[in-house]
C-alpha cells in the first residue's frame, strides 16, 4: 500500500503539468486581451500606446513558451505569481477562497448523501412500488432543475417570503443552508440512481439470499449486507461528484454571492487574469487528483478483496 501511494503521488506530477499546460494554451488561444479587459468599460479612452505600455509592464508580450516556462518554474518554488487584476499573490487568493468552497462542498455532499443513499436503497428494496416511482421522479427533478433556478426559488421562499434564512453571503451556519441544499439536490439525484441500480444487482446475489434465509431482519440485510457491497460504484460516483462540486459550484456561488473558488475562477476567466486562472486550476486539479486517490483507498477499505501492491 505504501509503495502504491508513493507511485500515485509521483504520477500526480505529469497529470498536473498536463492540466496546467492545456489550460494555459486554451486560455491564451481564447480571443480577448487581458490588458484591454483590465481597463474595462471605463478605460475605453486609453490609446494603443498606453495599452501596449501596460501590457509590457505585466510581462504579457513575451513568447507563450517563455510565459509558460516562467509559470512552471515559479510554481515549483511555491510561487503562483500575482493576479493581473488585483495584484494580490495568487496563492493567497486561492487559499483565502478554498475554505469557503470546501465548506460548501462538504455540506452539499452531506445533503446529497443523506438524501441520495436512503432514496436509492429504498427504491431498490421496493422496486416498482410507489416509493420507487416517487424516488425516480425526485431524481429526475433533481438532475433536470437548473441550479440557478432552484437557488432563486429557494431564496424567494425561505429568505423573502418566510424570512427564515439569509438570502446570500456567509457568516453563520444559516448562510450555508440554501446554497448547500441547492447544490446537494442535483448530486443526490445521481447518487440515488446509482445506489438503486447497484443495489438491484447486489440484491439478486447469493449472499443476500443466504442472509434472508438465515432469518435476518430486512434493515440488517439491506443496510449492512447489501448496501456495503453495493457501495463501490456509488463511491466512484461520489468521488466524481465531489470533484465536480469542488470546481463546479460556480453557479451556486454566483447566485448566493458565496466567495468560493468557483466564482474566483469565473471572474478570472472573464478578465483573462492568466495567473489567477492557472493557480485556481492547479489547486482544483490537485484536489481532484487527491479525491480520486482517496476513492481508490476507500475501495480497499470497503471491499477487502481489493488490494493494492
Amino acid at each position: 500500500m505504501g509503495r502504491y501511494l508513493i507511485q500515485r503521488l509521483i504520477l500526480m506530477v505529469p497529470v498536473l503539468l498536463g492540466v496546467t499546460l492545456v489550460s494555459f494554451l486554451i486560455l491564451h488561444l481564447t480571443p480577448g486581451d487581458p490588458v484591454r479587459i483590465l481597463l474595462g468599460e471605463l478605460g475605453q479612452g486609453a490609446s494603443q500606446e498606453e495599452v501596449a505600455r501596460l501590457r509590457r509592464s505585466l510581462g504579457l508580450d513575451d513568447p507563450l513558451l517563455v510565459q509558460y516556462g516562467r509559470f512552471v518554474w515559479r510554481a515549483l518554488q511555491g510561487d503562483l505569481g500575482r493576479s493581473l487584476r488585483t495584484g494580490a499573490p495568487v496563492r493567497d487568493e486561492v487559499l483565502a477562497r478554498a475554505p469557503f468552497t470546501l465548506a460548501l462542498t462538504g455540506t452539499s455532499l452531506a445533503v446529497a448523501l443523506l438524501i441520495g443513499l436512503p432514496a436509492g436503497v429504498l427504491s431498490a428494496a421496493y422496486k416498482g412500488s410507489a416509493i420507487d416511482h416517487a424516488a425516480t421522479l425526485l431524481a429526475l427533478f433533481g438532475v433536470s432543475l437548473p441550479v440557478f433556478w432552484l437557488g432563486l426559488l429557494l431564496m424567494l421562499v425561505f429568505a423573502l417570503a418566510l424570512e427564515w434564512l439569509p438570502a446570500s453571503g456567509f457568516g453563520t451556519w444559516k448562510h450555508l443552508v440554501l446554497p448547500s441544499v441547492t447544490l446537494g439536490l442535483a448530486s443526490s439525484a445521481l447518487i440515488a440512481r446509482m445506489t438503486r441500480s447497484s443495489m438491484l444487482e447486489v440484491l439478486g446475489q447469493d449472499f443476500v439470499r443466504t442472509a434472508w434465509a438465515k432469518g435476518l431482519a430486512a434493515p440488517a440485510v439491506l443496510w449492512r449486507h447489501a448496501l456495503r457491497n453495493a457501495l463501490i460504484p456509488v463511491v466512484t460516483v461520489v468521488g466524481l461528484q465531489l470533484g465536480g462540486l469542488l470546481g463546479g459550484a460556480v453557479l451556486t456561488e454566483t447566485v448566493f454571492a458565496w466567495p468560493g473558488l468557483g466564482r474566483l475562477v469565473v471572474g478570472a476567466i472573464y478578465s483573462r487574469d492568466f495567473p489567477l486562472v492557472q493557480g485556481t486550476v492547479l489547486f482544483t486539479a490537485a484536489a481532484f487528483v487527491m479525491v480520486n486517490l482517496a476513492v481508490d483507498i476507500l475501495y480497499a477499505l470497503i471491499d477487502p478483496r481489493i488490494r493494492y501492491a
Partner: protein
Amino acid sequence: MLSKVLAGLIVLLVGTGAAGFAGPAPGEGIVIAMPADATALDPHKTNDGPSFLVINQIFETLLVRTARGLEPRLAISWRPVGDRTWEFKLRRGVRFHDGTPFNAEAVRFTIERFINPEARARAYFVLSMVEGVRAIADDTVQITTRYPFAALLNHLTHPATSIVSPAAVARFGADFVRNPVGTGPFKFESWVARDRITLLRNDDYWGGPPQIARVVLRPIPETSTQIVELESGGVDVVFNMPADSVARLERNPRIRVYKEPSFSANYIGFHLERPPFSDVRVRRAVGHAVRVEGLITFFLKGLAVRANGPLSPVVFGAHTDLPGYEYDLDRARALLTEAGVRAGVRARLVIFESAEWRRIAQAIQASLQPLGFQIEVDVVEFGTWLSRLDRGDFDLYGMRWGTVTLDADYTLYSLFHSSQIPNPNYSRYRNPEVDRLLDEGRATADQSRRAQIYRRAQSLIAQDAPMLFLYYPLSTYAVQSAVQNTVAPFSWINLDLRKTMVRR
C-alpha cells in the same frame, strides 16, 4: 498550506457568529450591494466601477463635476497660468485619515506617482498629458501639460486622480491597494475578499462628519439575488436594476427607486471601410429604419432617453438639439436605391453578452429586415467583444460609452479623432475638419468657446453618421425608504453618502 486552509475552515464554520458579520443595527449604518468586488482600493491601481464606488467614499479629487458645472473639492479655486499650466489653491486644514496633513506636497506626490510609468496606473490615460507638477506654496500647486489641454480640469474629477496620503503610501508600499488612506468622509476598516468591504465614518471630515456610522459594501454578482436582498431588508442600496424589476420595486412602499440621467450613451457603430456601410446614404437609411422610441418604451421600459448625438446632455459640450432621424421606411428605401444597394445585404453585428444588448440587437435585426438586410448577431463575452472591435472583425457593433470626465473631449477625441484608429475609434472615422476642431477644443481655455467648437464637431459627426446613436441610459438605483439623502450624480460610482441619514 493545508493547516492554513483547515484553520480558515474552522474559523468560517465556528467563529463567525454575531461578532463581525451581523448587519449594522438600525440607524447605525447601511449596506450597499455592488455588482462585483472591488479589484483594488488604490485609485492608481484600478479602473473599474466597483472599485471607484468604494474609492469615492475614502478619497477625494481636487474638483468635482455637478449639474452646476465644475465645483471645488480639495481645490478651492483655480486659474490658468499661460496656455499649458493651471494653478490650484488648496483647501486648508484638511487631514488624511492617518492624521498627516493634506497639502501641495501631497498633490504633487499623488500626480507624480500616478503618471510614473513604474506605477502601472490603470487609468494612466486620464493624466497622460501632464508634464509636471510643482508645489508653489503649502496650499498652491501648478500642473503643466505637454500640450495645451483645456479638459484637464474635468480630468481632475476622475476618481483615478484621487489624492492619496504620501505617508500611507510610504508605509504600506504595494499593500496600499488593501490599506487605502485618503481625505474622504469614510475611513477604510476591513476587506473580506468577495464578501464585504467595511468603512467607518471619518469623524474629522473637513465637511463635517457624515450622519451614518458605517458603510458595508457587498459584492452580489446576481441581480436577482440583489433584489431579493433589498426586498428582504438585507441590503439598503442596489444599483442598475433590470428594467423589469424597476416597476415591481416602484410598487414597494418600503423602497424608493431613483432614475437619473447618466453620463453614458449606447450606439450601433458601423465599419466605415466595409461596404455597404462605407456609404453615408446607407448609414442614414439605417437611421430612418430603426424606431428607437419604440425600443426604449418596450425593451427598456422607458429607462433611457433618445439619443441624436454621441454625448449625453449632462456632459459639458454636448449638442442637445441635433436633428434626429425620423422613422421613415420610404425615405430609407429611397436612400438605398440612390446608393445603388439592392436587397440581400448580409452583415454581422457584434455585441457583448447582456440581456439589454440581446434585446437591442434583435430589435435592430427586425428593423432592418424590411430594407432587405439580413443581420447576423454575434453575442460574445466582453473580452472577446473588445478584441473583435480591435481587429475590426465586424460590420456593425453595439457599444456603450461612459463620458467619465463629463467633458466632451473624453468621448469625441477617443471615438472620432483619426489618430485613434483603430481603437477606440473602432468605426475608422476620418474627417479632417472634425480632427481640427477636436485639436482646437483641447487647446482652448475659454469654456464657452470650447462648447461652440464641440457643438460644431457634433453637427459634422451627426451628418457623417459613423454610428447610429441610440439612447442615453438612465442611471437607476433603489434604496430602502428609511435611508434618506443619498445622491449619485451621473453614475452609481459617484454615490455620495456625506448627507445620508437612516431613520428606521
